[in-house]
């Protein structure tokens, strides 16, 4: 393990920013700390960087305990949320700064900076100043500046938050590729689940200063370990009295359920396949989401979301439809449980 946190705690006055945080990141991998704003994710990153000091617990980088080590001796590159480019310096000077501090000789600096400018695809922009760059370009320069002194660990604070949605996706792929190419261990912080899922090898979900779940994006998506993780990942809608739906019974200790859009299939009534397992619902709204339609459907006074393929017969607002709920997550304050539509199971058994 390259980076390890063991029982790290941090309070600001009465506010708990980190409580018993423990996780590890293997060498060469890209980890994402995911959580809502105020969850303490930025504080965790700043503690790894040495910008904040933990009240207790250990932070270990490359087998060395670094709690007392000043930030500049931790071998870290840090990309700030708003990039923190030195506003009066050119792109070249920004990237060269760390090397100049290390008193490297001029030709070395020149070569290294040009190498990095090439890596981030900013050739021709060497003499621009930050205010002449777009958000994506600033991000690339900040990235190059962080990499210049050859750090062993790269930390990125909300790296895409300040960038247009369109450029964001492209930059995300670029970052993942480049990080892999350089082979540097990296940790980034984000509040966007899609971003974490797409870029990270491993996701660490934090909420209220605590780690909720650690795992690969697929693991976390498939098996949310805590109610928070289940609610935070996927566009789940919360439902009470889930026992009213066909194929589901109230289970002891679980009062509420979560339904993700992928768990629901909507079809025209004439196309209904499993009448015993299905419900009738009314379409409240339809919105186009690029690759599919997102449908808001109302069943027995509860509304939730479902996707509908563009290839299928179109569905319109106000239409009566057949709604099949495959499965849902039941949850209480501590646990999450996946249950499947019982009627559907039975019906499938009959049909075999």
């Amino acid at each position, binding site marked *: 393990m390259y980076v390890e946190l063991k029982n790290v705690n941090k309070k600001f006055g009465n506010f708990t920013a980190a409580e018993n945080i423990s996780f590890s990141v293997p060498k060469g991998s890209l980890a994402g700390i995911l959580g809502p704003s105020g969850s303490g994710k930025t504080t965790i990153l700043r503690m790894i960087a040495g910008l904040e000091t933990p009240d207790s617990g250990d932070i270990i980088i490359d087998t060395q305990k670094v709690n007392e080590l000043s930030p*500049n001796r931790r071998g870290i590159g*840090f990309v*700030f949320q708003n990039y*923190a480019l*030195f*506003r009066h310096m050119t792109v070249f000077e920004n990237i060269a700064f760390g090397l100049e*501090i290390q008193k490297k000789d001029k030709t070395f600096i020149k070569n290294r900076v040009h190498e990095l400018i090439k890596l981030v695809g900013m050739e021709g922009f060497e003499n621009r100043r930050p205010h002449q760059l777009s958000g994506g370009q600033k991000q690339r320069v900040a990235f190059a500046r962080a990499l210049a002194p050859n750090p062993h660990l790269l930390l990125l604070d909300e790296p895409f938050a300040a960038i247009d949605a369109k450029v964001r996706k492209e930059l995300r792929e670029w970052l993942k590729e480049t990080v892999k190419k350089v082979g540097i261990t990296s940790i980034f912080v984000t509040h966007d689940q899609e971003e974490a899922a797409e870029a990270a090898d491993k996701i660490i979900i934090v909420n209220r200063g605590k780690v909720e779940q650690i795992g690969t994006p697929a693991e976390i998506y498939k098996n949310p370990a805590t109610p928070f993780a289940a609610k935070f990942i996927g566009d789940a809608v919360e439902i009470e009295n889930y026992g009213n739906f066909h194929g589901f019974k109230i289970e002891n200790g679980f009062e509420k359920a979560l339904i993700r859009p992928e768990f629901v299939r909507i079809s025209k009534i004439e196309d209904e396949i499993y009448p015993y397992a299905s419900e009738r619902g009314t379409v409240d709204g339809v919105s186009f989401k690029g690759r599919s339609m997102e449908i808001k459907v109302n069943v027995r006074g509860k509304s939730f979301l479902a996707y509908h393929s563009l290839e299928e017969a179109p569905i319109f607002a106000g239409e009566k439809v057949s709604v099949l709920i495959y499965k849902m997550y039941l949850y209480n304050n501590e646990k999450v449980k996946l249950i499947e539509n019982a009627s559907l199971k039975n019906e499938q058994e009959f049909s075999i």
Partner: protein
Amino acid sequence: MEKSFVKKILIFLGILFLAIMLVLPLVSVLFHAFENGIKVFIKSISNEEALKALQLTLIAAGAAVIANTVFGIFASFLITKFSFRFKKIFSLLIDVPLAVSPVVAGLMLIFAFGKRGWLGPVLDYLGTKIIFDIPGILIATIFVTFPLVFREIAPLMQTQGTEEEEAAAMMGANWFCIFRKITFPNIKWALFYGSALCASRALGEFGAVSVISGHLREKTNTMTLYVEILFNEFELASAFAVSSILVMISLMILILRTIAEYKAKKWEDK
């Protein structure tokens, strides 16, 4: 139709006000200074007393600019880049001299550093005299202009945040390097503006130094005190001549300040 009429009236009112209240007094100083010819003017400003007053004024203003610029830099760095206990109290204390009338400021200094002041015995023991002497004039001038540089640069440093400094520190830069290469270039024009503001206030300081000087002619006379003496002795031509020197220095600083302000604005817009 109606709009342009209102516009004309308002512009006329504004210009009239400025002309009568601000420009006329300025012009009248210069007019009276040269009223009795250039010879009288030169004689008024070249006698020993005038030169000594000019010298003391320049020393006091210089001391205030240096002390308060150094203070402004460190204090604003402290207040805006770090978080620590009693920060609010610190910034409040820094502003105190602005709330105090200069005459009252002089009074406080007498009770601190004077013979009956609480530091009096210490100063007596050291054999130094502050009140009714040149050091007192310097301290009084520093006191009344104390927060001016700080107040110009602190808000700017606050809006610029700490990320750039943090980024530099993470790469191993020391304090001096961070200040010289990161912080200073971002605030230089505001710093210059603040220093110039401090200089012009220091040059014109009257109330506090008037209390501190003890009206010792020649020894503790600044330009403004000298002007007062001349005016009270009905030496109007000399009073205006000496004043005109102050006016010219002040105007020069004002022009420099306006340039600095313009540059600072341009810099901030980036």
